[in-house]
């Protein structure tokens, strides 16, 4: 079924010449942050496994997690998790049929960008 008539229909403007909107960009970044967070979570699992294995293994993993590279991953992931979380809340609201209008969606998008940055600053300062 799916092999019939692919590519012989009118297509919407290609991504490269299509003006980016706040709604599409916030959506793309929810996907990006969600998938990128896998790196930090695997690093955290390694940290826990090392802590369970003993002091020597923990020293290696803890050293990596607290190195400049691990620090950078955790810092970016802090923003990513807050952003992804607020993006998720927006999806839960959309799923119930609320805030689907363009204006409201854009307002919510702007709010989630601002709040995710504020929460990242708060987390870095508090933790």
């Amino acid at each position, binding site marked *: *079924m*799916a092999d*019939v*008539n692919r590519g*012989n*229909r*009118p297509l919407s403007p290609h991504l490269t010449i299509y003006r980016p909107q706040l709604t599409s960009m916030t959506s793309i970044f929810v*996907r990006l942050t*969600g*998938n990128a*967070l*896998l790196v930090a*979570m*695997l690093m*955290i*699992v390694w940290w*826990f*496994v090392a*802590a*369970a*294995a003993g*002091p020597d293994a*923990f*020293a290696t993993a*803890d050293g990596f*997690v*607290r190195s400049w590279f691990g620090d950078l991953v955790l810092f970016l992931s*802090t923003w990513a*998790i807050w952003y992804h*979380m607020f993006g*998720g*809340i927006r*999806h*839960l609201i959309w*799923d119930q049929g609320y805030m689907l209008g363009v204006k409201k969606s854009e307002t919510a998008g702007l709010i989630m960008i601002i709040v995710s940055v504020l929460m990242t600053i708060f*987390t870095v300062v*508090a*933790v």
Partner: protein
Amino acid sequence: MNFMTDRKRAVGNGSAKSGTMAHWRMTLSSVGLLILIPLFIFTFGAILGHPYAEVVAYYSRPVPAAIAALTIAVSFMHFLGGVQVLIEDYVKGLTRKALVVAMTCLSYGAAGLGVFAVLRIAL
């Protein structure tokens, strides 16, 4: 130009029946993580950077240990659903199957290993 779309050809043939379950599982795990993630950020963040003995003592306490174990378990089920959608959107054929299998193994593997490690520290 032919305006027949895949959707139009599919109408009337019945649904696949199981597709909504994938979405519902993501909804469930996302609500779970909504509770767990803030708790995890501030418990894990509080102990990260402390020496080995303090970390072990901290995760011997039931509440931080439970938060960590649940966050690891639920987040990897959420990762599995999310990454699978990513793979299915951009990759076709055998590569798609292989990547979905690999991601499934990685998710259950990391979740199992992580939960086991937390329990090992806690008990």
